């Protein structure tokens, strides 16, 4: 309770309130800009949070994370432009509704589920955080080792087109983490005689390069050709709000789907939105109206976009395993402020966790007001050329890489990983497993040695402890799933 009060009092300090407003504004603006999402915006803010205290830094980053999706939904409904990949699901029914003269209804439904979905996210975090914490208290080094392996395999399975490409990316990430001094032996490995590599490859430039800079490069190449075709703001706000409460069962179902997808490492809100939409088309009455401007399509898709934030944050805060690329950036921010991601955050900085939950909800509400209020201004932003946005992102990523350690070699690392990330995406290797390997590699290595040093059974201790064994079985299930599925799936009849 004391921690909750501390979080509240920290949030209501004027500079934190201002930062929350600023973060919300940035979130709404980047949500509207085609091709830029919360990951890029959070990455761009890294250099600005570097000198801040941890509380204002996280107020800014979480406000951006929470608010970027509604702006994207608004432009998807009004101008047929999804602000970010996840908003593509809003477009399916949102724009046809707007064309039918029900733009206000669609926006009101989207705004209502945004607020309620945000509330669900926060409540789910509040409920499951203590449960997860109690579970984590049972964990020792063998479980943390297994957990790191699980995070890697799960993210490889979820984020990449093929599981083996994901595992390869994760493996390379772990190997990158091996460069530099060994945490227990103190021996410098693979340093090539350079001082820079003796300290290891720093996480921040890799995260900024592989996740944000690579996306900016792609955007630069593709250029911008999206010009919005606006529709008049007509329809009824009351009808939209009412539609959400009339379909409350659908809303709750979408929330639960989104939460489960959010917890799965690497899945993110885009997956949550489409899975929830697919479920709605299968479970609702009159599914033939979906795609033709059915408000239930907007409710199902948008609810999932907002409700998955809780599930996304849970493994990040409790175990240090990011649920999405935005969470990987958040982990980099934790590292930047000297906090090891994982259970230590819940144990030592519970006030920060409560603050994150509060900001998540309040920023959701402010973003709805802001996006609806400034919708005409936001339309103009959708016409910004990618050629002007991309160098700004690249510059801020370079600056973010530099200012944290004042080493130009970090900028070089960010550039190299930017190019590598671009090619990885192009050929079906998502960069997230690589980034996660770099984050989890040292955790896994340390836990492995702690286990082996204190174990009387050698490596068998990993299989004799129940929690460790359960996590191991989960790893086996994730890796073997495609093969098991192949055994039970009937082969499709050949076209020939």
């Amino acid at each position, binding site marked *: 309770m004391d921690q909750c009060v501390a979080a509240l009092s920290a949030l209501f300090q004027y500079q934190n309130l201002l930062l929350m407003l600023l973060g919300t504004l940035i979130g709404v603006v980047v949500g509207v800009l085609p091709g830029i999402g919360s990951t890029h915006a959070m990455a761009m803010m890294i250099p600005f949070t570097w000198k801040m205290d941890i509380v204002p830094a996280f107020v800014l980053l979480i406000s951006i994370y929470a608010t970027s999706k509604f702006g994207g939904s608004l432009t998807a409904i009004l101008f047929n432009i999804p602000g970010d990949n996840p908003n593509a699901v809003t477009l399916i029914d949102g724009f046809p509704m707007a064309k039918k003269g029900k733009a206000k209804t669609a926006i009101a439904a989207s705004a209502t589920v945004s607020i309620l979905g945000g509330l669900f996210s926060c409540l789910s975090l509040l409920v499951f955080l203590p449960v997860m914490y109690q579970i984590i208290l049972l964990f020792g080094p063998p479980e943390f080792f297994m957990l790191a392996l699980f995070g890697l395999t799960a993210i490889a399975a979820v984020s990449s*087109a093929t599981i083996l490409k994901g595992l390869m990316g994760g493996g390379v990430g772990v190997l990158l983490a091996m460069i530099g001094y060994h945490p227990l032996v103190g021996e410098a490995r693979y340093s090539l005689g350079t001082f820079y590599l003796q300290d290891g490859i720093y996480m921040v430039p890799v995260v900024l390069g592989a996740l944000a800079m690579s996306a900016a490069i792609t955007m630069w190449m593709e250029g911008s050709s999206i010009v919005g075709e606006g529709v008049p703001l007509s329809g009824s706000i009351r009808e939209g709000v009412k539609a959400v409460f009339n379909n409350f069962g659908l809303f709750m179902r979408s929330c639960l789907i989104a939460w489960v997808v959010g917890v799965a490492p690497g899945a993110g809100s885009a997956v949550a939105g489409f899975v929830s939409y697919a479920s709605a088309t299968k479970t609702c009455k009159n599914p033939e109206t979906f795609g033709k401007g059915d408000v239930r399509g907007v409710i199902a898709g948008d609810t999932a976009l907002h409700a998955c934030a809780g599930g996304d944050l849970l493994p990040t805060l409790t175990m240090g395993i990011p649920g999405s690329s935005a969470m990987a950036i958040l982990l980099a921010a934790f590292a930047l402020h000297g906090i090891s991601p994982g259970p230590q955050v819940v144990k030592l900085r519970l006030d920060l966790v409560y603050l994150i939950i509060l900001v998540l909800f309040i920023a959701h509400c402010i973003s709805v007001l802001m996006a609806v209020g400034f919708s005409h201004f936001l339309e103009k932003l959708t016409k910004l050329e990618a050629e002007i946005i991309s160098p700004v992102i690249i510059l801020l990523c370079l600056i973010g890489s530099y200012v944290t350690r004042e080493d130009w070699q970090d900028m070089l690392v960010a550039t190299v990983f930017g190019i590598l990330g671009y090619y990885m995406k192009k050929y079906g290797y998502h960069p997230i497993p690589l980034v996660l390997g770099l984050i989890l590699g040292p955790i896994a290595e340390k836990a492995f040695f702690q286990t082996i040093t204190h174990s009387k059974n050698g490596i068998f201790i990993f299989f004799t402890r129940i929690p460790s064994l359960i996590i191991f079985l989960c790893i086996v299930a994730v890796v073997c799933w495609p093969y098991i599925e192949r055994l039970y799936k009937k082969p499709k009849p050949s076209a020939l």
Partner: protein
Amino acid sequence: MSKDLKAKRPDPSPKELEKLRGELWIIIPFFAFTLYIFLGSFQYKFAAAVVPMFIGFATLVLAGIRLFHIIFPKSKIGDFKEAGLAGEFESIKDQIEEEVLKRSEEEPVKEITEEEPAKQITFREEKKAFIALLICFGSVLLFGYLVGAFFVIVGTCYYYGFKKKGKIFITLVSMYFVIYVCLYKLLGAPADFGLLLQPILESLNLF
């Protein structure tokens, strides 16, 4: 059934072959890096070597069989067809989009899904973007972020031939505000004038 299994594997299409060849940009660095880590692990004490040795070996095998598949595209080894959960989600997404397309036959497709054929990025565009990226890096490296950002924005605007000077001006002013005022003055980021400009400024006693 057995006949089906023994059926000759169809030749990959030229497009598939081109994509596989392109993958060499990823596989060769991965293979070389994992080989270096794996072989290098033998020189360290056991405690420091065990993790890079095992993970290096596993990743080396994966990279090796993929490289084998790229060299011999007809082989099943290294085909990596096992779709993870992302593949499942992709198929759900495709299914939804297909259904939406079917249902909205009477309406123009573009207005519903905004599904346009994905723009094919040419090698020329890639080269152009990478050069631009390296120029960004070079400017910040040589002149520091305070001055380098200025060159990058002006250079980019003229490179893409923007006719409207207003856009350049607005971008410059906003970048100056964000970088100089917010980052440098308010947040106290380190003053940096790069590897080239800093010595010049120091020699002129301007820094």
